[in-house]
């Protein structure tokens, strides 16, 4: 289903972003390789999702999942702030995404 593909695309995007950081720190071939794979997979699943979803919806949700995914990863594994304003923004993205799914 298109929405599952979209979520998977967002997750790979989130993964790719973490590899950007890893590449920044480690600067090895493996990090670069994993980065390329992650982003490629992200685009692949996004393309799949866009076969049946409007461009704007797919792009916005994909961006949103990638962004909040990266933020959540940061909170869980890198000790980044869990302050209310961040959680609220994550909530906004989630609510809007669910809303878009419901009206589609």
């Amino acid at each position, binding site marked *: 289903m298109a929405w599952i593909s979209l979520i998977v695309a967002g997750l790979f995007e989130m993964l790719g972003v*973490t590899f950007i950081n890893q590449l920044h720190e480690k600067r090895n071939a493996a990090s670069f390789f994993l980065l390329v794979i992650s982003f490629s997979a992200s685009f692949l699943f996004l*393309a799949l999702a866009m076969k049946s979803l409007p461009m*704007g919806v*797919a792009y916005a949700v994909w961006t949103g999942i990638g962004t*909040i995914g990266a933020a959540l990863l*940061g909170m869980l594994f890198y000790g980044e*702030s869990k302050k209310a304003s961040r959680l609220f923004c*994550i909530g906004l993205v989630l609510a*809007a995404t669910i809303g878009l799914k419901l009206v589609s």
Partner: protein
Amino acid sequence: MPWLMIVIAAIFEVGWVVGLKHATSVLHWIGTVICIGLSFALLILAGKKLPVSTVYAVFVGLGTAGTVSVDILFFNHPFDGVQIILITILLSGVIGLKFVTDSENKSKEEGDKWPGSV
């Protein structure tokens, strides 16, 4: 200059989104990949001159607005008010996340890392 880079990056962003959905020939796909590369490169360049969060926020805003507009104007996507409002709310969350995080990290370090890390 960096602001112009962001605008052009957003144009290429819209380009690859359109390509991803509508590409049919090899030429289309090559064009799509080129758009992805250029968009990314310009974004990184702009990020060297301006705060990364600002760059990303403006870029994502323009990219999304551009994509929705192009879909409505050129691909006959119906103007859906509810959809547009929800997309705007979603964007607010994404942009808000960048700014509330950035304001806290400014006190931690001077150098800005890629948006996703903060």
